[in-house]
Every structure is written in structure tokens, then in C-alpha cells.
């Protein structure tokens, strides 16, 4: 009887609820404007310009509608609005969009350079507070205007957001989510960094001639001091950064053979250039022209390893009353190119090679360290937090003017490289045995 009565009570309530149902929080999918990328820029009068890229589902599933070629329409469109805060811009944007803004599926948030330079802190309050936004969305910065990135129509992937998110996911530079940036902003002794993305023209096919289509490209890392962008590290240095935050890239890093002891590698000399110059330089680094197999013996040539596994450990110690950070990296490499004709079947060669490889990694890291410590003075590696963890007492004395201390912080880097495999071949196929370097 008891349960009978409770059921009899439940049923009319359900009926009532059904009537109520239309009221609260209920919205059909075809009443939503689903946004997938958001760009935030700062206007000249200090307001926020928010651009949202919205998906058009019907264009997406229409088989012909994919991509941008052939006079078909894009499966997305872009709207923007300007307001003092993020939610205000959203509500202004809502006035221009016929469906309810839906921001839960934003996967990438692009911060324009102007905004980044003037400070991202206020924006991050909104980003962590707003209910719909996912705290695991990726954040990127770009040189110049952020909204520009929304207009690209990359060829691979149905949507720009997928191309962008996948580009970030290649582990060339460390990815950064809202959460991680927010932690870096809040933590003591840590400055945030955010991967930088730019656009690069696509090689036009015959069908595409004149479309001036663009693709996404990782250009490096934006370095922040506090919540302000202070500079960009180009891609090579960004790799050094990846090592220094223990997110070593799955990337190839070419070295010269035989190594010129002591001299920094050609790429790394250019850290003093501005990031854009470094970028341009990077496109045609000297000494990478293909050496002819026969002449490979005479001139220094290149060996390219592929990093398979890498792990970086951080230690601190006090030397002469001063904190010293010891960074120890350990990597496992595969050799993927041996243009130098090194005899890789000779066990004695491998330690030499390992040393050379370690040296190149070390130089890369040191270059990044120089950039961060001396030029930008931003502790993106979180060495301050490291010291705080290990010497809480000492940290209290350093906390006040940490950036000054950081500039002079001695960092010792040691690198260990193990070459495990040599690709699919032992010795280079293009050399005769007597041509090999011993």
C-alpha cells in the first residue's frame, strides 16, 4: 500500500512536470548557435573585441559543402562584438546572432597580441568563471589580430577548429589549456606561456589559384611576465622551452657532423633577433643544402635524430648561499638521417654521437634560458615555484623581487642522450664502406 500510494503520488507530479518542462533551461539543438573558436582582441579604446566562429551543421553534413572550394559555402561563419568585458561582448554579440550563443564547445581560444601585451588577467577571470566554457579549452596567442585566425579555411579537417586543435596537438610546442594558464597566473614564482599560432599561405593547387587560402602554423611561444605578453620565442627556442618544462617535443633536431666544439649551432646564434626575423631566418637556415653523397665526406654534413622519449628532472641546491637550479634531461633518440656518412655500426661512434646530440639539446635549452632570463625576464619555467617547493623559507626572502633574482639565477643544464636505434638501415645506403667516417 505504501509504495502504491507513493507511485500514485509520483504520477500526477510527472504530469505536472511535463507541463512545466517547456520553461527552464530547455533548448533544442536547432535553436543553438554552436561556437567552436573564440578570438579575443583589444581595441584601441581598451575594449574587448570578441569574435566567435559558429558552426553551420547543415552545411557540414551536406556532402558537397565540406571545405571552401568550388563556390560552396563555408560550414561556419564569424561574428564579432565589442564590449568592456567578455560576458558583455557576448550579450552584444547575441543581438547579432539569431540563435542562442552556445560556448561549451569552444575548443580553442585565440588571444590577440594587443590584448596579450596589455594583460590577460581580466579575461581569465571570465574564462574560468563562466559556466559554459570548458576549462580544458586550448589557449593560443597570435602576432597581430586574433580574429584573423578565424578566417582561415584549412584544407585538412572539416573545420578550422579541428585543424587548429590538431596542429597544437602535435607536441612540437607545449599545449596550454585555460586551466594551466590560470594556474601559472595564480601561482607564485611562475609566469605563463602560451603557444603562438600564425597563418601561412597554402601552396595553391590549380583549382585554388587566386584563393589565397591560408593554413595554420605554429610559430613559437608567447612569453608572459605576470599577465602581460613580453615577447615571442621562435619555434626553435620554443622547443627549448618544451624541454625546460618537461614536455619535450616529438621532433627532429638536426646536428652537424663533425660537431664544431664550443661553437653554437647556426640557428641558435640568432636568438638576439626579433622573433619575426628569427622566423624568416628559420625558413632557410644556412648549411642545410643537400650535400651530394660523394662529397659528403669532405664537408660537415647533417645527422638528424628523432626524439622518442624524454624526461627532464629539476633539482635545486644551495651553493655559496645562492640557489642553483640543476636541470637534468634524459632523452632516447632514433637516428633518422645520416647524411654525414657516420659509421653507425661502430659501437665506438655512438657515444660520440650521443654527446653531440646532447650538446645540441643543451644549447637549445640554454638559448631559451637566455631569452627568458636576460631579455624577457619571465619565469615561464616555474623555477620560482620549484624553489618555493624545495626551500619555502628561502622563498619568502626571494618572493618580493623574484624577477630580479630570476634574471641572475644560475641554471646548470646537463643532458644525457641514448641512441637506441638507427632507423631502418644501419649504415647509410648511399655510401660505400670505405667512404664512411670512423
Amino acid at each position, binding site marked *: 500500500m505504501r509504495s502504491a500510494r507513493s507511485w500514485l503520488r509520483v504520477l500526477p507530479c510527472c504530469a505536472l*512536470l511535463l507541463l512545466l518542462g517547456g520553461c527552464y533551461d530547455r533548448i533544442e539543438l536547432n535553436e543553438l548557435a554552436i561556437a567552436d573558436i573564440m578570438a579575443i582582441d583589444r581595441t584601441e579604446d581598451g575594449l574587448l573585441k570578441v569574435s566567435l566562429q559558429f558552426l553551420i551543421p547543415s552545411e*557540414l553534413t551536406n556532402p558537397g559543402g565540406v571545405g571552401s572550394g568550388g563556390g560552396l559555402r563555408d560550414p561556419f561563419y564569424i561574428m564579432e562584438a565589442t564590449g568592456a568585458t567578455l560576458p558583455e561582448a557576448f550579450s552584444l554579440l547575441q543581438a547579432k546572432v539569431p540563435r542562442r550563443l552556445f560556448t561549451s564547445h569552444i575548443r580553442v581560444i585565440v588571444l590577440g597580441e594587443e590584448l596579450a601585451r596589455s594583460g590577460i588577467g581580466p579575461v581569465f577571470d571570465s574564462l574560468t568563471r563562466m559556466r559554459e566554457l570548458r576549462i580544458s579549452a586550448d589557449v593560443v596567442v597570435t602576432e597581430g589580430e586574433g580574429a584573423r585566425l578565424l578566417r582561415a579555411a584549412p584544407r585538412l579537417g572539416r573545420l578550422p577548429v579541428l585543424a587548429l586543435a590538431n596542429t597544437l596537438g602535435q607536441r612540437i610546442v607545449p599545449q596550454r589549456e585555460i586551466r594551466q594558464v590560470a594556474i601559472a597566473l595564480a601561482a607564485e614564482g611562475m609566469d605563463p606561456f602560451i603557444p603562438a599560432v600564425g597563418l601561412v599561405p597554402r601552396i595553391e593547387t590549380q583549382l585554388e589559384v587566386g584563393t589565397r587560402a591560408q593554413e595554420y602554423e605554429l610559430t613559437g611561444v608567447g612569453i608572459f611576465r605576470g599577465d602581460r605578453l613580453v615577447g615571442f620565442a621562435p619555434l626553435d627556442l620554443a622547443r627549448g622551452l618544451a624541454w625546460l618544462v618537461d614536455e619535450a617535443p616529438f621532433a627532429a633536431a638536426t646536428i652537424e657532423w663533425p660537431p664544431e666544439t664550443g661553437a653554437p649551432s647556426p640557428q641558435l646564434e640568432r636568438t638576439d633577433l626579433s622573433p619575426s626575423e628569427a622566423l624568416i631566418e628559420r625558413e632557410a637556415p644556412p648549411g642545410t643544402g643537400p650535400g651530394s653523397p660523394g662529397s659528403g665526406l669532405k664537408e660537415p654534413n647533417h645527422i638528424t635524430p628523432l626524439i622518442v622519449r624524454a624526461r627532464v628532472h629539476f633539482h635545486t641546491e644551495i651553493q655559496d648561499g645562492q640557489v642553483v637550479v640543476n636541470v637534468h634531461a634524459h632523452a632516447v633518440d632514433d637516428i633518422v638521417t645520416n647524411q654525414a656518412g657516420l659509421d653507425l655500426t661502430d659501437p665506438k661512434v655512438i657515444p660520440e654521437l650521443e654527446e653531440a646530440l646532447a650538446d645540441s639539446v643543451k644549447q637549445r635549452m640554454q638559448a631559451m634560458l637566455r631569452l627568458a632570463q636576460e631579455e624577457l625576464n619571465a619565469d615561464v619555467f616555474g623555477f620560482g615555484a620549484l624553489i618555493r617547493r624545495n626551500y619555502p623559507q628561502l622563498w619568502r626572502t626571494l618572493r618580493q623581487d623574484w624577477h630580479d633574482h630570476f634574471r641572475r639565477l644560475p641554471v646548470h643544464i646537463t643532458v644525457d642522450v641514448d641512441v637506441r636505434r638507427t632507423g631502418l638501415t644501419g649504415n647509410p645506403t648511399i655510401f660505400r664502406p670505405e667512404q664512411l667516417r670512423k
Partner: protein
Amino acid sequence: MSSLFRAFFDWLRRGRAPAQHPSLDDRWVQRAIQERLARKPASLVDEGLAGVRLGKDLKTNLSTLRRLAGDAPDLVVRHLHIAGGPEAAVVFFETLGRAELVANQVIKPLTHDAAQAGLRVPSSAGGLEAWIREQVINSARVTVETDLREVVRELCHGKTALLVQGLARAIIVELLGLDTRNVQEPVGEPVVRGPRDGFVESLQTNMSLIRRRVGSPLLRFERLLLGRWTKTPVVITYLRGLAPDELIEEVRRRITAIDIDGIIDTSYIEEFIEDTPYTVFPQVLNTERPDVVVANLLEGRVAIMAEGSPFALIVPTSLWALMNAAEDYYQRWDGATLVRLLRYALVALMLLFPSVYVAATTFHPEMLPSPMLISIAAAREAVPFSSFTEVLLMEITFEALREAGVRLPRPIGQTIGIVGAIVIGEAAVSAQIVSAPVVIIVAFTGISSFVVPHFNVGVAFRIARFFILILAGSLGLLGISIGLMLLILHLAALRSFGQPYLAPVSPLRWPDLQDTVIRLPRWLMRKRPQVTTAWVRRRRDFPLRQGNKTFPREEGTARAPGRD
């Protein structure tokens, strides 16, 4: 103001029995049974048939008999002289007995054989009766009645009566051989491996199917007549010593309390003996399979069968037992366990899939992965209904198709399936009245609902699915959670003959988990479930592990209480 409070508290005080905890007496079914027992007439005496004793005069007896039988046209009265001597009459319903059997087994021995053998007919009435019963009649079951009303009752159950001039008693001869359906594989519960005989409409046959499988004399059949008009024989079956006495007594009590015009099928009984009548969940297991009945008897449960019904009822049962198929016990335990897991997963999916879809698309689009959201949004772009309406419409359509498919003759039923699938699904999608994901969901839940081995449990879950769907459509995830909680609460509160419906999972009984969502190998199922009386818990001894100790005695009652 204070008087108001006092009145309120007085009202509360008066409210109920002082019971702090709910007990079974408090339950609806117990009160109902009490009421029924109180209301029911002391004996099931039908008006006009009250005790009519047989006289010595054959003619009077016969005319009374005819009158009591309502001058039935199919009542055959065959007059004869026993071995050319005393006058007698053989009475039977030609629609219930077989005329040639009566002729061969009763009439021929009485007249022809007795006369031919030149046997001496005893002159005294008592001697005559004994002589007929012991030497003449060719039937195994012969009884004697002194009450005409009982004679009529026996006639109505297909027996043959012999009335003799000068004898105030009727000799009742039972001649089997009514036409029944052959024992076949049960349609509702087929197995790939395992016994293939199923119950038929004859109680006699059904009892024999059980008796054949149980050699122990402790197998008990208790016969009752139920139904004011049908007088249907109903049998309670159990293994004495395994089934707890209280359980047997409770079954007996609930069944005797039934006062109804007729029992056409055991389902009539089921509705009367359930603990909670107001629920969609069946609390009694029904089966067409004698092997299932026997397996349950061996676990100390009680079965109920009725004449004219090929379904036996088994009490007490649990949700887990209702989710099991007979097949599970005949296939290897590992495979059976996986199949069961699949079954539970599909039932959970069936219960929740449509609701989650509705909640996700109308309340929580952030729940969906981006690619899926895009696909669904694209599919829904031109659909005029809300997704709740859409799902509800399609679910109802599916139920309609299913019902139509069951009712229609088989060849047409298949057509309905095809028409339903193609026309309603395909056309509705291409006309953009319904989105494709909804069709997929409805079809999937439809299929899933048929993995439940017992049809009535499947129906229960389907109804529960609508309940949750409505809550999901009005309150989203909150509705689903609340709905599920109320559903589980309801299930946890249900009982089957006092046994918690979700036992042994809740309340937890570790050893009994052997046969729920999983099925352990038979050699690990050492103990009987807790329904059995506590001191006969062990199923058997294990010669392999325990050495060749005494084989467990068959008679559970004879065991010392200390031995497990």
C-alpha cells in the same frame, strides 16, 4: 493556538500502530489476505448442492444425480446388470471421459467378463462393493463416495461413477486419457541446450514432468480446488525440508484466501498473491519449463500450478532471477556470465538511452562530444518537433508495431515489421519529420528490450523507460537522476513473499551473489540461496575436496541442525 497544536499531536498519536519499523503485517497484501480470509465462506459449498447423501434406491439416486448435474445432455447413464445379477448404472460425462475406455474398463468387466468367468456375485451390499472394487474394475484408481454432491464434482473432473441398486455408496473410477496437447518445447523460453519439454494444459501431465525429475519422496504436491465455478485443481509443489515451513504456510494461506469465480490460468493466481499489487514489476516468476521449476524447488522455493495452464508460478523470486534465462544454466558458466552482463548492460541502456538523448540534446548540449553534437544538430536542423516529442512519438510507434506484430497472424506480422521499419523509419527521416539519430535510438532500445528473458519484466522496464523519459524531457539530467533514484528505491522496497526484491545484492548476501549478474561454475555454487531453511544451506558435499565422506542424505529434514 496551543489547542491547535494539541489537536495536531493528538491526531498524530492516534495515527498508527506503535510499530517503529515496518513489518510485514503492515503491508497491503497482508491486510488484504486477512480481509479475504475473513470474508470467504467457511466451505466452498454451492447453493443447492448442499450435502445430499446417497440412498439405497438406484432410481432415486440417478434422478437426484441428473438434477444435480442440471440435466446435462452430455451426461451418460448406462444401465446394466452386474454379471446378470444386481442392477447398476455407470454414469459419466461423455465430453470428459472416453466412451471406449469406460466400455472396456468398467462396463465390459462388470457385465461380460464377470458373467463369462462364472464368478460368484456376493449377495451383501458391502461384499458387492468390495468385490467390484477389488476384482472387477480395470482401473488403478478407484474410490468410494457417499455424498452425491461429491459424486457430481468427481464426474465434473472427468471421472466415472458406478451406482449399484441397494448400495448407498458410489464407486468412482478414474480413467485417464483425455486428449491433451503433446509435450513440446516451450515457445516462450526456447533453449539451444537443455531439456526441451514444456508444460501443457493438463495438470496431471505437468505434475508427472516434475515428478520424473525428482526422485525424492520429499517432493510434495498439495492439491486445492479454486474458483467458485471452475473448481480448478491448483497444486502447490515444494520439497519438504528445503522450502521453509513459513513460506509453504504463507503460500497456502494466500492461495486459500483467493475467492474468485474461476481460475483460467495461473496468472489469475499471480495477481492475488503478489506482495505489492500496484507496481509494474512482477514479483512472481512464471515458467513453462519443468526443469526451471525443479531447479527452483531445489533452491527451496515453492511452485504453483493449475489445471488448464501451462505456466507454473514460482515464489519467492527476485529481479535477478527474473532476468535469468534457463539457457544460462545449461551453457558454460563463463559464457553464461558474459551473456548475463550483456543483458544487464542492454537493459540499462534501454532504460536510459532515449532519456539521455533527450536530456543531452535539450538540456545539456555540452555533454555531447563536438563531432557528435554537430551530426545531431545537422540531423535535427529541419525537424519540426522537439527531441522529446520526437523520441516519444517514435517510442510509441515502436510499441504499436510490436503489439501489432504479436497480434497479427505470423505471415502478416512479418509484413508489419517490414512496413514499420521501412515506411515509418525511412520515410519519416527522409521527410525530415524525425531525425535519423532518434530512429537509431528507438530501434536500438527496441531490440534491447527483447533480451529480457521474461516478457513481463521486459514490459515493466519498458514502462519504467517512459517514466524516466518524461522526467528527462521536463527536467533533463536532474529528472533522470531523480527518476532513477525513485525507480531503484521502488525496486528496493518491493518484496516477493517477504524476500527483498533486489536480494541478494541489496540487502547484500555474499554467498548468494553466485547466481545473479554472474553465474559461478556449478562446483563453486556450494550453498543454496538464503530462501532455504538455514541448516540445509549446503547443496552437497564435495568428495574431491573433503575426501569420501558420507554422501549427504537425501532427506534434508533428517540432518542434524549443527551441520551447516
